[in-house]
């Protein structure tokens, strides 16, 4: 019967009820949507970062991180392969690379790039390059002079497929090594910077050019999920001689992305706080109004012998209904709007110039996580009940005589 009364009471003033309901709905909806949006951005950022030649876990020669030069190469890939076969989860993908700074030049232009000597078959499965070649072809396993470059670089160099490009870098003997390549493929990437930075040649071609023999700069691997990285890295750190190798997870390899992830968490938190305040005040005010309108009634109930606690409970029951109703609708709307946009994505190209700097892509696909939905609802619910306590206690404190004298 108490619940029936509560339900009827909230519809005594439908307009006011709708105001509170809207506040709750907007609160829940915006919290769900914003966290899904932020998660979409960060997920995409992490995925971009990982597929842009980072991988989930990387192995380098000790010291490569501080000085990624040719002298910090790993000269015995056979050792690594044995360790990997023994320790990595079965469906891990991994590939070896040569990765050094180089200067690319043609007759008219020259520019600093990152030279990547790649194992074409494996690389294609691990990094973005697998699906990125839009013109020409990707490398063949022993391609001696083939090179794949980004669209932006092609434009900058005013060159095209089939033309020559010379790469220069320092070899293991600290001499200048240079080698002429022919553009066999052109790739596109999410970000223009990527297209300008990376040039791909075959692993043997790079090793020969730099007099590396079998040496490689890094191993990059892709695991089943982002979350496994720490675990796998720990296993590898145990298995590899610590004096010769260093192992990094994607979080460590991309400190910028990791920092931005934290910052976005901060944004979401801030928004939760804003909703908190706005909704809190809204609920307190409207509930107080509702309570004052019913002072006579509460006075009557108290005169009849109702304990103050019952009155608190009565007011809270009414808030409870409003909150639950608003939460259901808000969550539904949140789910619907995220669902609608997760197919098409949100186009950020108008602000992409700024976004690209932060490693964001042009299209954002919001991602709902049950954790965020639960948090949003919990925050609204707990807040709603807490702020209703004040009017409820107020209602319970009128003495019957005061209340009944009130008009």
């Amino acid at each position: 019967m108490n619940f029936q009364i509560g339900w009827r009471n909230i519809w005594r003033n439908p307009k006011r009820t709708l105001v509170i309901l809207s506040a709750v709905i907007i609160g829940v909806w915006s919290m769900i949507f914003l966290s899904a949006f932020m998660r979409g951005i960060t997920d995409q950022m992490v995925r971009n970062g990982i597929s842009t030649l980072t991988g989930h876990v990387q192995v380098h020669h000790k010291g490569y991180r501080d000085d990624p030069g040719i002298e910090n190469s790993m000269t015995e890939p056979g050792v690594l392969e044995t360790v990997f076969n023994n320790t990595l989860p079965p469906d891990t993908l991994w590939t070896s690379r040569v990765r050094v700074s180089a200067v690319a030049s043609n007759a008219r232009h020259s520019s600093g790039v990152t030279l990547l000597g790649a194992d074409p078959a494996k690389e294609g499965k691990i990094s973005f390059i697998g699906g990125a070649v839009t013109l020409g072809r990707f490398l063949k396993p022993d391609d001696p002079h083939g090179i794949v470059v980004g669209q932006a670089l092609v434009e900058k160099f005013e060159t095209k497929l089939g033309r020559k490009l010379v790469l220069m870098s320092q070899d293991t003997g600290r001499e200048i090594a240079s080698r002429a390549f022919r553009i066999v493929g052109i790739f596109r990437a999410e970000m223009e910077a990527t297209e300008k930075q990376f040039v791909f040649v075959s692993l043997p071609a790079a090793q020969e050019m730099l007099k590396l023999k079998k040496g490689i700069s890094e191993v990059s691997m892709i695991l089943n999920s982002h979350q496994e990285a720490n675990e796998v890295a720990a296993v590898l750190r145990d298995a590899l001689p610590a004096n010769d190798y260093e192992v990094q997870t994607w979080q460590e390899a991309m400190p910028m992305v990791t920092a931005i992830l934290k910052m976005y968490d901060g944004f979401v938190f801030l928004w939760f706080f804003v909703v908190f305040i706005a909704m809190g005040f809204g609920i307190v005010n409207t509930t107080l109004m509702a309570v004052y309108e019913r002072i006579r009634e509460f006075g009557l109930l108290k005169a009849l012998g109702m304990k103050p606690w019952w009155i608190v409970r009565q007011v809270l029951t009414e808030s409870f209904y409003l909150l639950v109703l608003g939460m259901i609708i808000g969550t539904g709307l949140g789910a619907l709007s995220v669902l609608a946009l997760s197919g098409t994505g949100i186009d950020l190209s108008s602000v992409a110039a700024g976004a690209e700097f932060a490693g964001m892509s042009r299209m954002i696909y919001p991602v709902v996580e049950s954790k965020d939905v639960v948090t949003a609802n919990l925050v609204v619910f707990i807040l709603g009940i807490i702020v209703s306590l004040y009017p409820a206690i107020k209602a319970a404190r009128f003495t019957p005589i005061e209340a009944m004298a009130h008009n």
Partner: protein
Amino acid sequence: MDIVECTDIKKTYHQGKVEIQALRGVNLSIARGGFMAIAGPSGSGKTTILNIIGGLDSMDAGHVVVDGNTLDEMNQSQLAQMRLNKIGFVFQAYNLIPVLSALENVEYIMLLQGVPTAQRRDLARSILNDVGLEGTYDRRPAELSGGQQQRVAVARAIVSNPSIVLADEPTANLDSKTGKGLLEMMKEMNEKKNVTFIFSTHDQMVMDYARRLVRLRDGLVVDDKVKEAQ
């Protein structure tokens, strides 16, 4: 023993710097099963004495014993419990919860007392029949006439067999015909169920119906008449 015993009750209200002596030493004993009216000019203290007997207001001096409970020694929560179980109230107006039907208004008091649902419903129906409201169970207060609303209030006041029913000017908002009907009904309930009724009133008809008439003036009892059986 009498069901209500008031000994030398004093009550002063403070309104800013002005002191208003509402009761200046009221002594009053009321026998069980009485049907009594308290009359007197406006401001003479009728509502104040009823509120004190009902445990709604505190007194400055004196003692009140209601059905064995010494009110001046009880705390708020004990007073609430006593009101719930021993006292029925009928106010001049706004007696009912607007979102509840007539039946639910009567039931609600029993809900607070913890009476089981089925029993609650039966009792509420039969008491509404007793006060002449069969067929209006499901109407909200706004859909009832003033007289019908007061009948629901009386039904609610007597449904759980209280020791006393306190009615502060119950007929003040009713025309005389409706008021008479209500009084007849209350008299019947008084006789049938032996519930003690105490009214405050300006209404000559109420005074005529009462078997005992107490007059107050300036916070003192100035007249107390028990009528011969009619």
